[in-house]
C-alpha cells in the first residue's frame, strides 16, 4: 500500500511539473519566431533625464 502512495506522489509531482511548464509557456507568450521571418531591430535604449 505504501508503495502505491509513494508512486502516486512521484507521478503527481511530475504531473505538477508538466503543469508548471505549461504555466511558464503562458508567461513568456506565444512563439511568433519563424525561420527566415524578418524581425525589426530592437530599439535603442532611451535616455531618462533626471
Amino acid at each position, binding site marked *: 500500500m*505504501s*508503495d502505491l502512495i*509513494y*508512486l502516486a*506522489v*512521484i*507521478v503527481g*509531482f*511530475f504531473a505538477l*511539473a*508538466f503543469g*508548471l*511548464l505549461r504555466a*511558464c*509557456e503562458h*508567461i*513568456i*507568450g506565444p*512563439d*511568433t*519566431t*519563424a*525561420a*527566415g*521571418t524578418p*524581425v*525589426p*531591430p*530592437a*530599439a*535603442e*535604449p*532611451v*535616455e*531618462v533625464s533626471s
Partner: protein
Amino acid sequence: MSGAAWLQVLALLVAVAVGTRLLGPYLAAVFGDADPVDGDENPRRAKAPGDRFFEPIERFIYRLCGIDPDREQRWTGYGASLLAFSLMSVLFLYAMLRLQHLLPMNPTDAPAVPSPLAFNTAISFVTNTNWQNYGGELAMSHLTQMAGLAVQNFVSPIVGLCVAMVLIRSLARRRVSVVGNFWVDLVRSTTRIFLPLAIVVAIVLMSQGVIQNLGGFHHVTTVAGASQEIPGGPVASQEAIKQLGQNGGGFFNANSMHPFENPNGFTNFLQIFTILLIPFALTYAYGRMVRDQKQGWVLFAVMAILWGASAALAMGMETHGNPELARQGANQEVTATQSGGNFEGKETRFGSAGCGLFAASTTGTSTGAVNCAHDSMTPLGGMSPMANMMLGEVSPGGTGAGLYGMLIFALLSVFIAGLMVGRTPEYLGKKIQAAEMKLVVLYIVMVPAAVLCFAAISVVMSSSKSSILNPGPHGLSEVVYAFTSAGNNNGSAFGGLTGNTNWYNTTLGLAMLIGRFFLIIPTLAIAGSLVRKQKAPATAGTFPTGTPLFAGLLTGVVLIVVGLTYFPILSLGPIVEQLGL
C-alpha cells in the same frame, strides 16, 4: 592556519585555473554551434576533438534509441523530454531498491529497501542530491550501487549540464525557437565528458588505495584478537563520478572519511579538485560559446570569490579551535604531533584545515560528500557550508546547475542596474523584460519557500522534533541544514538528525524534487524566451557585463538576496550558538 594548509589552498587554486583553461574550450566545442546562429532553425554543431572516435559510438546509440540527432527541440519539447527521462529514472530506481533482495549481485544479502527510504533515495540520486538516510555498505547490494546509483551519478549531473547549455545557447543564438536536442546532449555529455574523465580518475584513485572489487564482507581478526568484518565493493568507480558529477553519495556511510574511499592527502586533494573542475570549467565554456570570454571570466571571478570566502571562514574557524576547550586548558595549537584546531569529528590524515577546505568545496558545488563531521564543526565553521548551500549552489555550484544559477542572478543584477539608471536592462544584447523577470523571481523564491516551510513545520511537530539530537540553536541548525541540503540538491548531512523516518524521508524527498525541477523549468522557459530575441547592438548606454564592476554588483546581489532570505534563521541557529560559546 599552518603552512601546509596555505600550500594546499594555493596548489588547488592553480590546479583549478589550469583545469578550467584546458577543459573549458573542449566543453564549448562539444556543445557549441559552428557559426553564430541568426534565424537558422537548423544550426550546425561545432567540430569537437575526438569526433572521429566518438561519432560512430554515438550514431549507434542514436539508432538504437530512435533519436534523430539533427532535429532540434523548442524549450517545451526539451523540457518535456527532460521531465519524462527523470520520471522514468525515479520509477526505475525505486523499483530496483524495493526488489534488490530478489536481484543478483547481492553478496551481503542486503534486504529490500523500505518504501519511504526507497522514495527518498530514488529522488535523491535522480535530482543529483545524494542525500543518504542509510549506510551504503549495509543497505545496498552491489547491483543497486552499480546499475542504479552509479548510473544516476552519471546522468543526473548531465541533466543539469544540459539545462546550462540550453541557457547559454539562448544567449548565443538569435531569432530562433530551437535550443538543442535533449537526447543528443545527454548522449554526448556521457560519451565525451563524464565517462572518459571518470575512467581516468577511478584509475588514479585505485593506484592510491581506493578499493575496486565485487567482494562482500571479509572476516578478519584484528591485532588485538577481536573479530571484524571489512566490506568490499566497486568503490573507486563510484568515487570518481561521485566527485566529478558533484553527486556526493558515498559507497560507505562514512563517505570520504573512510580510508577505502579517501586513503591519503593526495586523494583528498584530487577529490577536491575533481569536485571543482567541471563547474569552474563551464564558465570558460560559457565565454567561448557566447563569443565574449570576459563574460566567462566575470562568472568565474564571482564564483571564486564566494567559494574563497566560504573556505576562509570554515578553515579559519576550524583551525582556530573551540573557545570552550581553550578555557579548559586543552592545547589546540599546531605541533609536531597534532594538526591542531577543533579536532572533534576530524580525520587525522586531513586535519582541521583539510576539513574546512573540503566542506566549503563540497557544499559550494552541490556535491555533499564529507571528509569530516559537519555537526562537530564550530558554530560559525558549520554555518559556512550551510550558507554556501543557501546561496543556491552557485559557488561554483553543481554541474550546469551552478552556471545557470549564476546566470539567473546575472539577469537579476542587470535588471536592478537598469532600474537604478532608468534604462531597459540588457544582457549580452538581449533585452530583459517582464516575462523573464517573473521567471527569475519564480526561480529565486521556490527553494527558500520549500526549505523554510518544511523546516518550520519540522520544529513544531512533536514527531519530527524527536529526531533532533541536540537541544536549542544547534538542534535548529540540524533541521535547517537538512532541508537546505535537500532543497538545494547538495546532499551533505550535518549529522545529529535522525533522517530515516517517514516524515523526513517524505518531506526531504519533496524538497529535493522542488529544488531540482521547479528551478529547471523556469530556467528553460527563460532560455525559450531569450533565444527568440534579436541582439541589440551595444551603445553608450549599455551596461557592460564583462567588467570587474559587474562582478562586484553580481556578488553583492547574490549576497543581499540570500542574506535577506536566510539571515533570520542563521541568527537563531549558528550565530546565536557561536555567541553563547
